[in-house]
């Protein structure tokens, strides 16, 4: 276990985008917040007077909803950024050390290929989304602080925006949703990592071209789009099933309904089929990592 922690630390050392990208955005947010350039859409704070009246005028319940939406938007933005970071990470994870020829050095360490691949999978599926959540929450705090200071300076109540209960609730819910989604995405991450372990070069093409080729061929041959549908479903299936469908979309979801849907998704055959596929792809990745002979 200790080895695994250090291997994950190694990943963060090497792939500095994991923390530098969110850190850079946070710095920008902070700067924008200090100079007062932040616009909060739902609260219309650009027109500050109006925003203040708005915020003070509405009952606590709705204020809670406003805080929740602002928070969800900001964290969501960070998560979207981290999804790009994560995609590039997964594609690079088992390719970078082959490209810079340090792979044989790593193989001179008494670390099994299982541990290596596992450390990279955990980085992609756990560490990167966690960084996204944390950075998103920090980003929200930056903006919330900015808003509070403004409210205070304007003679209003600086604490209007601080609703710790709501914040914790939103954070917990989003954490749950994100990791449900990561569980759904496991086969996709595993696929990217297999491409990363396999590709002689350009892992991105090795990951995407087969899917496009298969989809196009299928379309030409049968006029159907099963491959593209499957790919789309494996990418977006979880949010689709959580936030749309019978019973209303995310705006109209009854309280607690989202949890029912999360558990429903976790228990669904599609989720489990994904895990089976992911296990197969990870096994293949370990195999390729182990037996692929680097040409010298």
């Amino acid at each position: 276990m200790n080895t695994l922690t250090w291997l994950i630390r190694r990943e963060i050392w090497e792939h500095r985008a994991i923390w530098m990208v969110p850190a850079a955005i946070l710095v920008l947010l902070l700067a924008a917040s200090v100079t007062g350039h932040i616009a909060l859409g739902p609260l219309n704070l650009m027109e500050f007077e109006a925003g203040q009246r708005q915020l003070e005028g509405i009952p606590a319940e709705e204020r809670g909803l406003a805080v929740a939406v602002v928070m969800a938007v900001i964290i969501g933005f960070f998560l979207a950024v981290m999804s790009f970071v994560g995609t590039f990470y997964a594609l690079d994870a088992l390719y970078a050390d082959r490209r810079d020829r340090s792979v044989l050095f790593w193989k001179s360490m008494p670390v099994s290929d299982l541990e290596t691949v596992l450390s990279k999978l955990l980085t992609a599926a756990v560490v990167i989304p966690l960084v996204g959540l944390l950075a998103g929450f920090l980003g929200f705090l930056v903006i919330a602080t900015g808003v509070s200071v403004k409210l205070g300076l304007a003679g209003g109540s600086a604490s209007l925006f601080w609703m710790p209960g709501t914040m914790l609730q939103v954070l917990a819910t989003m954490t749950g949703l994100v990791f449900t989604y990561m569980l759904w995405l496991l086969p996709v991450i595993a696929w990217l990592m297999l491409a990363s372990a396999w590709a002689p070069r350009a892992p991105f093409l090795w990951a995407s071209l087969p899917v496009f080729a298969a989809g196009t061929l299928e379309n030409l041959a049968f006029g159907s789009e099963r491959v593209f549908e499957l790919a789309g479903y494996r990418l977006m299936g979880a949010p689709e099933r959580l936030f749309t469908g019978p019973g209303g979309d995310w705006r109209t979801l009854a309280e607690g309904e989202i949890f029912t849907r999360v558990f429903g998704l976790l228990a669904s055959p599609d989720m489990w089929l994904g895990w089976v596929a992911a296990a197969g792809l990870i096994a293949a990745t370990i195999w390729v990592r182990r037996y692929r002979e680097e040409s010298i």
Partner: protein
Amino acid sequence: MTDLIEARGLARSFGSTRALDGATFRVGEGRIVGLIGPNGAGKTTALKAILGLCRYEGELKVLGRDPFKERHQLMQEVCFIADVAVLPRWMRVDQLVELTAHTHPRFRREICEDFLKRTDIKRNSRVRQLSKGMITQLHLALIMAIDARLLVLDEPTLGLDILMRKQFYDTLLNEYFDGHRTILVTTHQVEEVQNLLTDLLFIHRGRIVLDASMDAVSSRFLHLEAKPDRADEARALGPIAERKGLGRIHMIFDGVEAARLAPFGELGTPSVADLFVAMLQGDRA
């Protein structure tokens, strides 16, 4: 003496090329073995097989293990420096030491730190900022701190200047080698290692053409710098190689008594390089 490496009929083909063609050899504990061969002779393939980095046919046991199946267990007791296994360029020196300390159970950090102190390597430098010589020193510092039974060196001093090369081998011999550890080394700069070696393995076209200790080599092979007028008589005793140089005739004999050769000129032990050339010519004939 236990054998750390036992290879029997080791073979490996790449397409129609047979990189290893039934190589059979042993490496005993506490030996410093030079694996010498021309380019494409199968040196690197043999080393990769020993390190569990490539598939092979035939039998191979390293420290009693199957290297291909048990690479990561093997790497607890086997270290290697290969020209192709470069240190990760993005990494900082302190990160590298830290990570090795936490992933290698036989790594003794204080030895590594001690060694690094004697170099100009800064802890917060990234590997890419170091000179070629410093990178080798850094790698050596890591290796020296690992209590390994077998050290494999594949062209470890490639691209280093002569001072660095000498320092590298001096350090290895004086500070690393303790009589129990075993070193297997390949290099093109044979002259630089020949005084270091206890054993020779010549490999040619995927086969071992000579497997002998240096002691055995010096008692079996003789170098004769023949007097021009006695050259024919010497030639009658069947040298395995002959070359002319600076108006003299050099011959190498395999298993001919010194007393019989002595009248024809000056006798000596052939250099590893000369012997190697001689063996290869013999093999070709």
